[in-house]
């Protein structure tokens, strides 16, 4: 009788511990999966500086607009940028420490999306899957 009680208690303990461990593992795996899946849109972000040197960054994002993507990249340390708030929206004046302020430098940061000049500012330019985004240092002509 004593032995039976011991076996039942032991079995219960083993099963409870095993189930608890499996639960912890499953929860951890789910949260890891969620982290990996966050970012359903692939992008390539290229910065071409004054000297023509390119810095390419690739990644995944769920950002809706280009400004959201750039803020995300800034947070992750992938890019540094400064933008001025104007009536038409945000205007990028500095990327990775390189200023292209039209008034001061007679240059600007040209935004090219999928080989075409962007028609909207960073606040309204949507980010789509597999977008190829370029910020090109462009002197005024």
């Amino acid at each position: 009788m004593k032995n039976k009680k011991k076996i039942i208690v032991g079995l219960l303990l083993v099963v409870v511990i095993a189930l608890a461990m499996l639960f912890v593992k499953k929860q951890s795996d789910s949260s890891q999966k969620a982290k990996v899946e966050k970012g359903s849109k692939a992008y390539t972000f290229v910065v071409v500086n004054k000297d023509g040197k390119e810095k390419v960054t690739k990644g995944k994002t769920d950002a809706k607009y280009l400004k959201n993507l750039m803020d995300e990249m800034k947070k992750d340390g992938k890019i540094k940028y400064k933008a001025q708030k104007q009536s038409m929206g945000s205007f990028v004046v500095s990327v990775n420490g390189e200023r292209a302020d039209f008034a001061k430098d007679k240059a600007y940061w040209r935004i090219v999306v999928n080989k075409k000049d962007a028609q909207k500012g960073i606040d309204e330019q949507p980010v789509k899957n597999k977008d190829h985004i370029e910020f090109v240092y462009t002197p005024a002509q």
Partner: protein
Amino acid sequence: MSKSNHKKTLQTKEIALLGMMTATLVVAKFAFQIIPNLELVTFLIIIFAYNFGYKVIFATFAFTFLQIFQWGFNTWVAMYIYIWPLLVIIVCLMRKWADIWFFTFLTIIWGFCFGAMCSVVYVFIGGINYAISWWITGITYDLMHGVFNGVVMLVLYYPVNNAVKIVAKQYNNC
């Protein structure tokens, strides 16, 4: 030599016994080294501790020391220094409940908790979050470890424990 000296120092027969236990542990570890987290060391330490008591802690230290020559010096050394002596202490404290079923469940739970016990070292290396994530990554192996330990205990308890009991009786009569 006075009686009190005998209590404080290891006797020759104890050193011989500890040597044999250490050698057995080393060989047992070697036998299953290909398969991760599957080992006979837990089983043997339990049987030795049950029959010979706290002195088995010395054998665990010697075993850990010899393993350095095989595996090199790494974080596992710190883990082995507290894990195996802890097992000896638990077995010695719980001797009165000892039987095949008690040891089977002890060894299963020991296997389940092995990763958690090892992760304590990583608290000091990478912080508590690192230690927890290290433990979680190895949970599947811990579960396998526990199940294997249980099977080994059920199969080998009677034959091995009976043999070690004979040795213990002869040792105590020396």
